[in-house]
């Protein structure tokens, strides 16, 4: 009985903070838009007794999902989000891996400082940092001014409000999530493994590909998921840096909610987004599980 009580605490937590809100979102997605407060119907009322509840369930339908299928804006937004998230994850890996590798190669007394520098951006608001990038990437921004001053360009480059700016923003924001798991995987790597590889005929480069890379694979996979999953639904970065050119589902969702006040459609978008995200989340959990088994 006591064991049951103990286990029930996290489950009640999950139920209250994840499952109940999610059920509410599903319910809204099955409702119809009306001009009222709240802006959807039907609403569940218990005052009319059993008949009211039956009427409530009869009012629910899949109209919004059918609408999502019929309008290609949504499909395009999902696909474009998947594409941007995939490319951005790959770019974050390209930037993050050498940084993590360099950190593990640094003198041990420097490592805490370097780790600190990676985490440091979290100390300021995410929003402010993205706004700062607007200042850096804009027509009059630091990048353009520097390039003009160096004489590399005559006309300021258009970076802000393009996909390029979105990629820069995502790579910058999510870089620590890529670096930290890779760093922790590389830090565990025993140097004598590399010496053994060299001793057995590897050049330094092939020792990296045959030993370091495969042994940091779990860190790479973890880092990629940690970047990919939140990037897929990212809203702030595309709306601030991407302008109107960048189509991402997070932005569509925000516009449905706040510009169109179409809560059922917005909820349906969110439900489908979650269904898409379940696949990488499950894969991520399996990777973590496998890693724990290999270590234990």
């Amino acid at each position: 009985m006591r064991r049951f009580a103990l286990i029930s605490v996290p489950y009640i937590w999950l139920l209250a903070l994840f499952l109940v809100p999610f059920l509410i979102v599903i319910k809204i997605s099955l409702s119809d838009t009306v001009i009222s407060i709240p802006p959807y119907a039907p609403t569940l009322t218990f005052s009319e007794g059993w008949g009211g509840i039956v009427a409530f369930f009869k009012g629910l339908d899949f109209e919004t999902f059918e609408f999502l299928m019929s309008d290609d804006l949504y499909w395009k937004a999902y696909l474009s989000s998947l594409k941007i998230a995939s490319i951005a994850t790959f770019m974050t890996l390209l930037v993050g891996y050498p940084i993590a590798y360099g950190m593990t190669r640094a003198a041990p007394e420097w490592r805490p400082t370097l780790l600190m520098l990676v985490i440091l951006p979290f100390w300021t608001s995410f929003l402010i940092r993205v706004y700062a990038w607007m200042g850096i990437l804009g027509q009059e921004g630091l990048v353009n001014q520097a390039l003009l001053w160096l004489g590399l360009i005559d006309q300021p480059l258009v970076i802000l409000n393009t996909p390029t700016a979105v990629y820069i923003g995502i790579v910058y924001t999510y870089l620590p999530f890529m670096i930290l798991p890779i760093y922790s995987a590389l830090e565990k790597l025993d140097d004598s493994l590399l010496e053994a590889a060299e001793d057995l005929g590897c050049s330094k480069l092939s020792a990296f590909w045959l030993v370091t890379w495969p042994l940091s694979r779990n860190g790479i996979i973890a880092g990629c998921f940690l970047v990919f999953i939140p990037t897929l639904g990212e809203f702030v970065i595309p709306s601030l840096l991407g302008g109107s050119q960048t189509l991402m589902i997070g932005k569509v969702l925000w516009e449905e909610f706040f510009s169109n006040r179409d809560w059922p459609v917005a909820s349906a978008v969110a439900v489908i987004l979650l269904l898409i995200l379940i696949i990488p989340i499950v894969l991520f959990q399996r990777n973590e599980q496998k890693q724990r088994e290999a270590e234990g």
Partner: protein
Amino acid sequence: MVQVATPKPVFAPWDDPTLAPLIQFKNVTKRFGDFVAIDDMTIDIYEREFFALLGPSGCGKTTMMRMLAGFERPTEGKIFLGGQDIDAIPPNRRSVNMMFQSYALFPHLSVWDNIAFGLRRQKLPKDAISDRVNEMLRLTRLSKFAHRKPHQISGGQRQRVALARSLARAPKLLLLDEPLGALDKKLRQETQFELMDIQEKTGTTFVIVTHDQEEAMTVASRVAVMDEGVMVQVDTPARIYEAPNSVYVADFIGDVNIIEGRATQTDENVHIVWAEGQPNIVGTATDASFGVGDAVHFAIRPEKVSISAEKPADTPNAFEGKILDIAYLGNISTYYVKMPSGQTIKAQTANTRRLSRRDFTWDDSVWVSFTTTAGVCLKG
């Protein structure tokens, strides 16, 4: 090969001036900043030798091995392998393989792939790799575990995988860095004989680093006792034990009584004054020559000291004392006999009989004695 009908000669290539050594250290010095790890070392190691580097931690033995493997370069001097200066050759192009102290098995590869790792780098045909790996698995009795990962096998098995992997490329020279350090005593003893067996079968030259003197004595054809970057003595295990060239070596290997004194008479024997009121110790002069008045350290192993109730008549080296302590070790007993002058002499007797009453007990007055050739006279 032609079989010659003579008794098998003793394996002692270091005594044969016609043989060229496999490894030559010529005035090698290695410094790390101000710290001198290896100090002007010159040593020859011959083919098929099982050469042990023995010394306390920090004596430079691991540095020496890492220079042979190519992970460190000498600050001064040259190292030759098979007559070739190996300074410019990187570790991956030396026909030297190393068995690491931590074994350094690749955790993401199976036992089979670990052993095949070095062979694949040689770009051998698939069949040749597979034959060689299977041969190595048989040699180290690991065939059953070929498809396990390193974390799925025991410490002793991991040690054998590391050995198989380092032998797979048939190196001219195999370096073993504290190979048995992680094993418990029983397994270690078994593995020592296994190592010797494998060394004999493959004909590879082995250089082993160890801080366990028993291990060095068991496996090695020659032992080098090192201290602070210098080889104090390089010799066969028997000579290291019976004819140490210094107090350091005598003290480092096995148990020993060191008696300090002064030479009074130096004919074919050295007579040593060592304590007031005691007769002189008469010892055989070794390589070192002593003049009258020179300081002498007389080193004698406890098992060469006998203990008796009556004064033995056949040796000048007989001294009376009192039993201070007795250490019963099962197979042997060590008696700590205190001399009237204050020194303690250890004497060992083998417990050849079970259930016999012990002849001596605490505070008994006894005579310790040894022959004139039992000990060695050392300068310091």
